[in-house]
């Protein structure tokens, strides 16, 4: 029971803290572009609060899917985050923090996102949504292979156990397969977080009116927040497996986790801010193939027992 309580606490804490890092990232990005940017680190809070105050509009042709999708997505994002063994890492596993659970929840989120955008009736949103699905086809294998390597090494799919093993040095970077898998997983995590040059998620520019195009006001705010949660969940997954050193005290662990994840989130600006976006079928495909290659190497390394 206590575990569930901690789960709720960690989701709330992260949901409250996440916009801060987004704000930091925005200021940093502005500075990198020779301008001042938002006045402080709290701009994203202001944006979200404002969105909640705005009224809703919806396209005439939309159905219930469109209406409920933001809440479902937020719920799924929160579930993913709750499944991360951050605060309850010293408690015995209750089986929720399973890699498969997380992957399925993530896939479901993507699916909801896809159908919601198609339901909005905006052809751009539809194209954006379908790209999102295509993107999954490339990213998912990399992620899954990397995770399979880790699971095989650990002999379990439970994050709490894996985490404990890594922390205790039973498995870790001394194993080449694990080290290589961490690289390919890092790539997958970065892509999943929807940043440039892979930010096909919001399809910001090419498909300008993008997937979120038809959401307004609080719906838009919730969807936005759901994406930030998902990004933190992805970072959380990486940290739990490959960077698990943390306190056992739940509160301290939570603070350290937020700080670490925030650093990851903000540091991504440096990659995000320079260079052009990739195209799905050319540069991105090559990139994904390369990443897939790396994950395959990890798998081979495991197979040969190195």
């Amino acid at each position, binding site marked *: 029971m206590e575990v569930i309580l901690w789960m709720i606490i960690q989701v709330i804490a992260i949901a409250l803290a996440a916009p801060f890092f987004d704000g930091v990232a925005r200021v940093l990005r502005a*500075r*990198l*572009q*020779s*301008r*001042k940017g938002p006045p402080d680190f709290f701009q994203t809070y202001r944006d979200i609060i404002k969105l909640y105050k705005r009224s809703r509009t919806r396209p005439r042709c939309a159905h219930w899917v469109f209406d409920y999708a933001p809440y479902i997505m937020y719920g799924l994002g929160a579930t993913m985050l709750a499944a991360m063994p951050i605060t309850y890492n010293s408690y015995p596993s209750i089986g929720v923090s399973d890699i498969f659970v997380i992957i399925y929840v993530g896939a479901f989120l993507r699916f909801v996102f896809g159908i919601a955008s198609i339901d909005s009736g905006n052809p751009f949103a539809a194209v954006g949504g379908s790209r999102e699905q295509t993107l999954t086809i490339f990213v998912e294998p990399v992620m899954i292979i990397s995770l399979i390597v880790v699971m095989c090494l650990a002999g379990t799919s439970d994050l709490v156990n894996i985490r404990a093993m890594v922390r205790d040095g039973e498995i870790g970077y001394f194993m080449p397969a694990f080290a290589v898998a961490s690289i390919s997983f890092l790539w997958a995590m970065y892509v999943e977080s929807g940043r440039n040059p892979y930010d096909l998620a919001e399809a910001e520019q090419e498909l300008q009116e993008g997937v979120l195009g038809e959401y307004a006001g609080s719906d838009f705010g919730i969807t936005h927040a759901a994406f930030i949660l998902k990004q933190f969940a992805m970072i959380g997954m990486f940290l739990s497996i490959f960077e698990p050193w943390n306190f056992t005290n739940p509160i301290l662990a939570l603070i350290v986790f937020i700080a670490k994840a925030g650093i990851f989130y903000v540091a991504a600006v440096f990659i995000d801010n*320079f260079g052009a976006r990739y195209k799905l079928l050319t540069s991105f495909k090559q990139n994904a193939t390369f990443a897939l290659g790396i994950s395959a190497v990890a798998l081979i390394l495991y197979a040969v027992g190195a």
Partner: protein
Amino acid sequence: MKLLDMTRKYGSATYEYPFAPYTVADGFRGKPEYDYDKCIGCTACGVACPSNAINVELNEAKDKLVWKFDCGRCIYCGRCDEVCPTNAVMLGSDFETAVKFNKEDLIETGELDVEYCQKCGKVFTTKRLIAYCVENFKKVGWSERVIEEKTKYITTCPECKKAESVELVSKHYSKGVKK
């Protein structure tokens, strides 16, 4: 990462405005400033204005000439400045011209007393314009007699002047031959 070097080299380029005042460059074409005391109601600006932002028209009672400027329509070309004989309209450097909720705030008007034609009694120009012309005659160094003659000429409306010269010409010519 050369772009990063550029950022480091040139730093933040942002102006303080609106939290601190901003001064525009010399010779900036800002909002036309109207000096009511200098305006003589010659309508040169109204005729020249390409976008009809300045209109000079009689009011409804036909007893005042109204110079009316709609800042919202102005294209800041400065034609009014160029043609104004008394520098009553000059482009200023004001760029803070936005208004909210009340469009009337964009409008500036100036009313001038009208002068009536000494022949037919119709309205045709402003008192100030006549006074300005007379003042100018004095500065040119003409004799009293010439000034008087010219003053009489300028206080007649164009229609009457036309009629007068037609009369004059037809008096001296008949069938194209000078009498």
